[in-house]
């Protein structure tokens, strides 16, 4: 291979013989380039892009998944707007998100600040707080269902011995969704804290030195230095948490069970999609639900991107 070949790329208009080496090399490079991306590109096209397009089409049809889909225009969407089960699931998902995201992020900020110091056992703490993140959600759901058990569960035992009220967690309309929120917060604190911790570690010590020279107190430093400089990481965590929360399924599936009478107060959008698509085989209808979920996530993410100017400070 010609050593001058790579230099030739940056210098167009060289003598003809050089130019020929360049173009021969670049054709070869392009050929290998295409070959290397081919498997992934093909796989993504078949298993992700084509189904995404198909899903959009299917959302305008009525289809049982077997016979050929029947185009029905906007019927699915008008029907969904009046479908109490679906609007309720949308509302539940929204409530779940609004409760989970701020709680998880608030605890994660506290944890990250505590861990961002030279303290003994930092790695051990980090490991312990992270274990819920990596544990299979199905197993997590089973364990918490047992913890929530109203007669023999640990939680109500502790509450009882503190003379606090002992709710019937998963079997009480008022508490069922919130019970799932608690588990989600528990599983996501570690993840959010790790991202925030790496954000904290990126804040230059000189800011704090200047502030302590000025005699600033701990709280002042936290609200005037740490929090503003942490906003880029907070923004990332917020966007990701919203996206993930809108797609909650596993915990509801395992903790509420498929027959639970309280499913109405905990059914989420993804649960609805699964139920309509794969239990009742209304695949056109379920596609429309999935499409609405996509739009909701897209709008909320775009909204966050737009408003980040107002509160995110990039250093």
């Amino acid at each position, binding site marked *: *291979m010609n050593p001058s*070949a790579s230099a030739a790329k940056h210098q167009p208009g060289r003598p003809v013989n050089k130019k020929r080496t360049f173009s021969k090399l*670049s054709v070869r*490079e*392009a*050929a290998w*380039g*295409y070959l*290397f*991306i081919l*498997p992934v*590109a093909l*796989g*993504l096209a078949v*298993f*992700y*892009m084509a*189904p*995404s397009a198909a*899903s959009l089409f299917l959302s305008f049809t009525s289809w049982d*998944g077997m016979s050929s889909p029947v185009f029905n225009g906007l019927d699915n969407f008008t029907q969904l707007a009046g479908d109490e089960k679906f609007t309720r699931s949308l509302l539940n998902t929204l409530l779940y998100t609004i409760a989970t995201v701020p709680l998880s992020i608030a605890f994660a900020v506290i944890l990250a600040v*505590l861990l961002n110091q030279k*303290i003994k056992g930092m*790695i051990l703490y*980090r*490991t312990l*707080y*992270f*274990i819920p993140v*990596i*544990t*299979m959600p*199905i*197993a*997590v759901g*089973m364990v918490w269902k*047992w913890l929530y058990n109203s007669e*023999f569960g*640990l939680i109500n*035992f502790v509450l009882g*011995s503190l003379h606090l009220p002992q709710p019937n967690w998963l079997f009480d309309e008022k508490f069922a969704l919130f019970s799932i929120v608690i588990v989600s917060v528990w599983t996501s604190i570690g*993840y959010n804290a*790790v*991202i925030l911790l790496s954000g904290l570690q990126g804040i230059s010590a000189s800011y704090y030195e200047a502030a302590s020279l000025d005699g600033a107190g701990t709280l002042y430093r936290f609200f005037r230095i740490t929090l503003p400089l942490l906003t880029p*990481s907070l923004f*990332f965590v917020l966007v990701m948490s919203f996206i993930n929360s809108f*797609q909650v*399924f596993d915990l509801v599936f*395992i903790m509420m*069970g498929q027959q639970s009478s309280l499913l109405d107060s905990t059914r989420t959008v*993804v649960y609805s999609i699964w139920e309509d*698509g*794969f239990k009742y085989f209304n*695949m056109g209808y*379920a*596609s429309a639900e*999935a499409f609405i*979920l*996509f739009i909701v996530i*897209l709008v909320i993410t775009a909204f966050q991107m737009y408003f980040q100017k107002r509160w995110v400070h990039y250093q």
Partner: protein
Amino acid sequence: MTSYSSYRSRRIAVHVLLIAGAILMIMPFLWMLSTSFKSFADSMKVPPTLFPSEWHFENYSKVLSTIDFGRYYGNTILVTLGRTAGQLLLCSLAAYSFACLKFPGKNLIFLAMLAVLMVPSQVVMIPSFVIMRELNWLDTFYVLIIPGIFSAFGTFLLRQFFMTLPKDLEEAAKIDGCSYFRIYWNIYLPLSKSALVSLAIFTILASWNELLWPLIMTSSEDMRVLSIGISTFQGQHSTDYPLLMAGAVMATLPIIILFIFLQRYFIEGIAMNGIKG
């Protein structure tokens, strides 16, 4: 002296808070472990006891004999390994191409790939089911492994990492007449161990813990993975918590042990991801 003692008391306060939080994080696991060794009657005791009054190790063998746990394990391990190996190989190859090679339309193809990241998996699920049925892949290992190999996220993650590597090495190798594949295989891959391990961890976690995809795409008992296995198990033994907890311990332990050994890579991978956004 006063500043030293206030510094010390602050440290103690920090530890107290961290320990209290850690107990809340770990308690459910200890409760799972403790219940898994209790007898049924023992688990229903009021007030509950932290430790079993008798240790019933046979709960575990009972789980193994009631459901085909070994099979679920085998399936899950096979699926996880297949996906992880395939993803590491194919995504890194594509990532190398995106990061280092020049070809027409590269940016457009890359953008199209990023667009895949935006679409929630639920949108893809319903048509995927039909595609898999047409391919006759439903209820086979193909459906559990192959679609999971192609990852826009993995390609993106590795591409970002390859972009940070110095170009000199590649130039030197080109001068020595190395093929592009050799440059990728002998230079880029060995330099990217930490990024590859991070991606492997994400893939292992995602496929080990996954529920919805196998729930939809498989139906026979032979094809059950752990998450499906223990959720059906819960359906059958809804109140026998010692057995359920033994099942949950067995399903989660391998990943927890893996995590404890590789926790640095787990956490660095996530932190790296968070910064790159």
